[in-house]
């Protein structure tokens, strides 16, 4: 009896801790939203207004009327979508090769591929920059998409391979004996059965392309190529006096695509973004 009572108290305590943690962790998000809905003169007041009674969308209006922001947004969207298409496209074929065929030193090549995930970005970037300047793909969407494959492609191959591995070779072999082509096996059996994995991979790729800052900062510097992360930061921090309402509105807009992906496809989002920690 005493045990049970103790259990109940502990359970309630656990709930309380969890509740408080949720509140604390949500404060930054709340503050981002509230700030973005304030007018400039409501920002620089002390004490800060914790709740807003006069909501204004002027920050958002201002953002969407800034030509540069629209460019950055468009560039981010293009880069993220192309990163996804390239990463998943090549990833599917790579995964197929590693999963369903046997060839010499397959394991070594695969481990090498995984190890490349651990290469320091900072070291890679130097040569990538020099190389991009030389072949003239600096300041292009293509260049950025290409550079992002250094992380997206190995992850993509690995994640999709995990799914292909769960489909037994008996199934693919009998399909081959029945006259199905190798491409046919891939498109009619493996891909349809691995759609959840491919979708998780796509989410991971999109978010990588959407969020990345360092490569975008160094490999692009025109409004025609630069993506949101460095665009927002440099544009607002250096040229304009920091208008926190505008900056938070823009930040909120930059967060919405990833937030939506998470809310709509929680399971796939988590699978994709925890690649490397949870198998399959």
């Amino acid at each position, binding site marked *: 009896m005493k045990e049970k009572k103790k259990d109940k108290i502990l359970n309630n305590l656990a709930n309380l801790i969890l509740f408080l943690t949720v509140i604390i*962790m949500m404060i930054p998000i709340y503050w981002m939203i509230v700030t973005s809905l304030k007018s400039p003169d409501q920002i620089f007041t002390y004490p800060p207004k914790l709740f807003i009674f006069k909501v204004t969308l002027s920050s958002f209006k201002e953002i969407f009327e800034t030509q540069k922001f629209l460019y950055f947004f468009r560039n981010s969207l293009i880069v993220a979508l192309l990163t996804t298409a390239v990463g998943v496209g090549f990833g599917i074929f790579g995964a197929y090769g590693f999963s369903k*065929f046997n060839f010499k030193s397959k394991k070594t090549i695969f481990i090498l591929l995984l190890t490349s995930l651990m290469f320091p970005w900072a070291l890679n970037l130097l040569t990538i920059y020099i190389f991009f300047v030389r072949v003239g793909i600096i300041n292009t969407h293509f260049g950025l998409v290409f550079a992002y494959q250094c992380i997206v492609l190995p992850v993509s191959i690995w994640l999709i391979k995990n799914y292909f591995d769960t489909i037994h070779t008996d199934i693919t072999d009998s399909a081959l004996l029945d006259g199905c082509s190798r491409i046919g096996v891939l498109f009619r059996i493996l891909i349809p059965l691995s759609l959840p994995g491919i979708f998780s991979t796509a989410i991971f790729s999109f978010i990588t392309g959407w969020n990345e800052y360092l490569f975008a900062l160094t490999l692009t510097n025109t409004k025609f190529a630069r993506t949101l*992360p460095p665009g927002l930061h440099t544009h607002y921090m250096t040229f304009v006096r920091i208008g926190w309402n505008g900056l938070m509105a823009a930040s909120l807009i930059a967060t919405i695509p*990833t937030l939506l992906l998470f809310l709509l496809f929680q399971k796939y989002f988590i699978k994709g973004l925890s690649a490397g920690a949870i198998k399959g």
Partner: protein
Amino acid sequence: MKAKKNLLRLQRKGVIFALLAIFPSFLIISVINFYPVVNGIILSFTNYKLGQQTPAKWIGISNYVSVFSSSVVWDSLKATLYFSLIVLTGVTVIGMVLALLLNRDFRGKAIARTLLIVPWTVPFFVSALLFRWLFDVQYGLVNYLLKSLFIIETNIGWLSQSPFFVMSSISTAFIWRLYPFNMVTFLAALQTIDPVYYEVASIDGANRVQKFFHVTFPAIRNAFFTIVILDIVWVFQEFTLVWIMTEGSLKTEVLSIFVYRNAFMSLTFPKAAVGGTLYFVLLLVFAVIYIRLLLRVESEE
């Protein structure tokens, strides 16, 4: 018999197909991963200058000598290790505690879990900007809340006052952004544990703490270390958050900023390459541990 012969022929043809399927990816990864790493290491031994026409000359270890004889790189290493240690401890402890708290049955569990994951969806550059605003010395919410709760008396210059406060601020921002990963992956690992073990432990009279160290932790050990290694690799290389919040001021010039500054502000690529090579060596150790852990998990299955 005929079927077997067919299969053999198919398999031989299959090797060519497989190599063709892998080749594009392998080519891309070579150009964007293997070549840059090799070339980057070579770069650190040359006198390369951006845009020069003549090939760079091999000058041995003199870049290393000049980099390591100045205190800058040592401060960088110190900052990187200090920052990594704080963040790693933070995300591991918070992630584990939240995972354990979520691994029970209670009303509102799904909502709590969803809300706790939300910081994960915030792009790094956004969390950096957001925390810069939260930590603003005059109008920031953090100073205001701490003052309202009588924890501090005067405003703290979180991002300007002293290395201690700056390090605390960027660590807080990073922990906030990273803990959901640990929480979610720890939780996934916890859910694989068979409840029978806990029942047996209860019969043996184990208390909660004993259960954690004798049942829970051993069961998720491999997953735990895999996750921690991934954390290390990320935290170690973090650039975005620190750069946007401090630009490396007040002893927060982590190694990634050292590389960036040397390459793209001072345009001394070989020096930057020394920093990059240092990264490579340090990360290689973790990469080896990581791959071994992965292979172990694989063979256990």
